[in-house]
C-alpha cells in the first residue's frame, strides 16, 4: 500500500464550497426575475436568455480549446454571464442581439484576459456597453409596456430624464415589475428576493448592495426629493446592478473597506450620470467605471496584518 498514499502538503481537508456551487446559487437567485419577465413581457424573454446562455457557453468552450486550456464551462460562470447579459436587453430585441453580446463578453472581456477571475470589468456589463454602442436602437427603443403590451421607449427613468412626470407608473407596479424595462431589471421585489437569498447563502456580502443602494437613495433625496427618489431606486436597473453586477467577485474590491468605497463611488456615479450625463440610466456605466479602479482600491485598502504596527496592544 505504501506507494499509493498521497503525501501532499496540509491542510488535508477542503470545504464543500466550489466555484460551481457559488455560480449555481447566482443562477437560482436570478430565476424569479426571469419568471417575472416572461409573465410581463412574454415568451421572447426566455428565447433571448437561452440564446444568450448557449452562445456564452459555446464561446467559452471554443476559447478554451483555442487557448489550449482545460474546459471551464463546468464552473457555470459563462451561464451566469449569459443570463445577466440577457437581463440587460429589452424583451422585444432580436435573438441575435444577446448572441453578439455574449460572444463579446466571453471572448473579449473574459477569456482574453485569462478567464474567470482575471477579467478587469464585468463581462455582462461590458457586453451590454458593446451592444449599446453598436445597436442602440435595439437596446433603448424596444421596451415592452406590460400594461398595454405596446412597445415603448419610455422606462420610468427616461420619463424622469425628460422632465415629464405625468405618465409615471405607481410605486406598487414598479416594485412588482409591471413597468417597461429590460428583461431582468423590472421586478424590484423579485430581484431583492434573489439578492437576499445570495446574502443568506453567503455567496455575496451585504456591503456592496446596501452601500450602493443607500448612496443612490441619499443622493436622489437630496437632488430630486422624496417623490422621485423611489423611481431612482426601483424604476431602472439599480437593484439588478447592486445585487448581481456590482457584487461580481473579480471586479469588486476584496476587503470590506474597499467594498464600501467602491459601492459609494458607484452610487455617486449613478446619480451623476442620471442627473448630468446623457443617459437616463447610469447603473451599468457606474459599475464599469468602478470595476476599472478596483485594482487600485485593492492595492491601497488592505487588511491590517496581525501584530504589525498599527495593531493595538491592549496589554
Amino acid at each position, binding site marked *: *500500500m*505504501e*506507494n*499509493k*498514499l*498521497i*503525501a*501532499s*502538503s*496540509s*491542510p*488535508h*481537508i*477542503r*470545504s464543500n*464550497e*466550489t*466555484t460551481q*456551487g*457559488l455560480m449555481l446559487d447566482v443562477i437560482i437567485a436570478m430565476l424569479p426575475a426571469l419568471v417575472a419577465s416572461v409573465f410581463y413581457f412574454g415568451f421572447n424573454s426566455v428565447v433571448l436568455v437561452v440564446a444568450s446562455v448557449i452562445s456564452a457557453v459555446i464561446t467559452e468552450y471554443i476559447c478554451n480549446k483555442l487557448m489550449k486550456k482545460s474546459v*471551464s464551462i463546468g*464552473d457555470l*460562470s459563462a451561464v451566469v454571464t449569459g443570463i445577466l447579459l440577457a437581463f440587460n436587453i429589452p424583451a422585444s430585441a432580436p435573438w441575435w442581439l444577446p448572441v453578439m453580446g455574449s460572444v463579446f463578453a466571453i471572448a473579449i472581456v473574459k477569456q482574453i484576459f*485569462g*478567464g*474567470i*477571475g*482575471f477579467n478587469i470589468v464585468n463581462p455582462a456589463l461590458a457586453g451590454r456597453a458593446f451592444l449599446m454602442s453598436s445597436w442602440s436602437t435595439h437596446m433603448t427603443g424596444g421596451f415592452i409596456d406590460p400594461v398595454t403590451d405596446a412597445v415603448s421607449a419610455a422606462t420610468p427613468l427616461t420619463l424622469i430624464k425628460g422632465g415629464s412626470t405625468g405618465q409615471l407608473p405607481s410605486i406598487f407596479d414598479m416594485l412588482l415589475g409591471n413597468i417597461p424595462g429590460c428583461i431582468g431589471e423590472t421586478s424590484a421585489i423579485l430581484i431583492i428576493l434573489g439578492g437576499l437569498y445570495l446574502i443568506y447563502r453567503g455567496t455575496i456580502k451585504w456591503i456592496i448592495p446596501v452601500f450602493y443602494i443607500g448612496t443612490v437613495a441619499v443622493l436622489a433625496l437630496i437632488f430630486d426629493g422624496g417623490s422621485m427618489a423611489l423611481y431612482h431606486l426601483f424604476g431602472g436597473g439599480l437593484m439588478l446592478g447592486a445585487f448581481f453586477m456590482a457584487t461580481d*467577485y*473579480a471586479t469588486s474590491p*476584496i*476587503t470590506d473597506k474597499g467594498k464600501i468605497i467602491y459601492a459609494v463611488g458607484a452610487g455617486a456615479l449613478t446619480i451623476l450620470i442620471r442627473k448630468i450625463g446623457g443617459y437616463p440610466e447610469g447603473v451599468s456605466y457606474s459599475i464599469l467605471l468602478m470595476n476599472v479602479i478596483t485594482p487600485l482600491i485593492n492595492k491601497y485598502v*488592505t*487588511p*491590517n*496584518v*496581525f*501584530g*504589525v504596527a498599527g*495593531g*493595538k*496592544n*491592549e*496589554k
Partner: protein
Amino acid sequence: MSTKLFTFKGGVHPPTNKTLTQNVPIENAVDPKVVVIPLSQHIGAPCDPLVAVGDTVKVGQKIGESKAFMSVPVHSSVSGTVKKIEQHYVPNGSKVNCIVIESDGNFEVYESVQPKGNIEDLTKEEILSIIKEGGMAGMGGATFPTHIKLSPPKDKPIDVLLVNGAECEPYLTADHRIMLEKPELVLLGVKAIMKALGVDKCFIGIEKNKPDAIEIIQKAVEGQEGIEVAPLEIKYPQGDEKRIINAITGRIVPSGGLPMEVGCVVENVGTVATIGNIFKTGMPLIQRVVTVSGSAVQNPKNLYVRIGTSYKDVIEQCGGYKEEPGKLISGGPMMGFAQFTDEVSVIKGTSGILAFSKKEADLGEPSNCIMCGRCLEACPVHLQPYKISRYSIQKNFDAADEFHAADCIECGGCSYICPSKRPLKETISVAKKEILARRRKVK
C-alpha cells in the same frame, strides 16, 4: 467561570468529526515488541545515544542526550535490548538516528524513576531541571523544548500562563480525553509550571464543544487561587498560540515575536498533564495519548501509546484499515503531515494518526482564483493569501515578503476555504521558507 466566550477575528469552521472518538475512553495500547525511538523528536539539536547495541535498558531510562542548550533527552519506553542504532524516517518526513529496542515484555522500571515530591518543596530550578530531564517537548505537535519556553530572559517578565485545551484540529480528541480522565494531572502540571514561571495567573482555554471537559476542569481548579477556565468559541485555529493569547487576554504578539513579548507562556494541555505525571510518578515522557481516527480506520480510538511504537501497530490495534487508505496523516487534518508509509514511529508530538479513504483524500483540482475574498476572511493573521500565493507561484518572493508572507502561521484556513481549491497555504509556505532562508543569509 464567566459565560463570555473568547475568540479572535478570522478563522474557519471545518466539520469537527470528533464524535468518532470523543466518547471513547483512553485505552492502553498493546505492548509493542519492538520500539524505534528517534533521537530527535523536538525542535533543536538531536541527541547522542547514551547506549550501545547489545545494552539492556529499562523503562524510563535515559537513552539519548545532547549537550546543546536547545535539546531534550529521550528515554526508553520499554525494557529490553538495544538491537540497532540506525536512520529511520520520522513523521515530519526527515530521516534521523533512532535507537531500536527489542522489548523483553517485562516493562521493568528504571531505578531512578521516583515520585518528585511536593511541588511546594521544590525550587524553581529544580522544577525546570525535572521537566528537562523528563524529556518534555510541546506535545501539541510543535515539540518545542518545554524547559526553554519556561525560562524566558530576565527582560521578558511573564505574568500569565495559558493552558491550551482548545484542541481546534478536527478529529483529534486526545486532549479532550486527557482533560476528562486526568484533571488532577492537569492541575499538578499547572502548579509546577506556575511555580517555575513565578506567575500567579493561569487560564485554561477550552472550546465550548467540550462542555464536559470545561465542567471537569472547572471542578478540578475550584478553590485554586489564580487558576481559571476560559471557555472559547469553536473556531479553527483557536488553539494557535497567538490566537489563544489574543482571545483570552486581548494581547497582540507583535509580528515575528514570541508569546513572552506580551508576558504570556502557552502550553498544550497534554504537555501540562504529562508534566503533572512526571512529578507524580517520576516517569519521564515515554507514552502519550494518540487519537487514531479517520474514514479508513475500522475502530477509531484514543490510545495511550509508548513512544517508538510504529503507526502500523497502532492502526492494527484499532481493527486495521477499513479500506485501502488514500492518505495517512500524522497530527490533525489541518496542519498534520501526510505520511508515505505507516512504518514510522509515534513520537512526542504525535497527537493523532488519521487514515483517510481514497475518496476523502481526493481534494479536487485547482481552478482559477475568482477573487471571492474568502481566504482574507479566514486568515487569522489578516494576510491576503490569494495575493501572496500568486507572488509565490511567480517566484516573486520580495513581493511576498512585502505582504508579510513570513507572518503566515500555516494553519491552512485559506486552502480549506478556497472554492477554487487552490493550494494557497502550500504556495505561501514555499514563500515563507524562502524569505526566512534569505533573512538568515543576510544575518
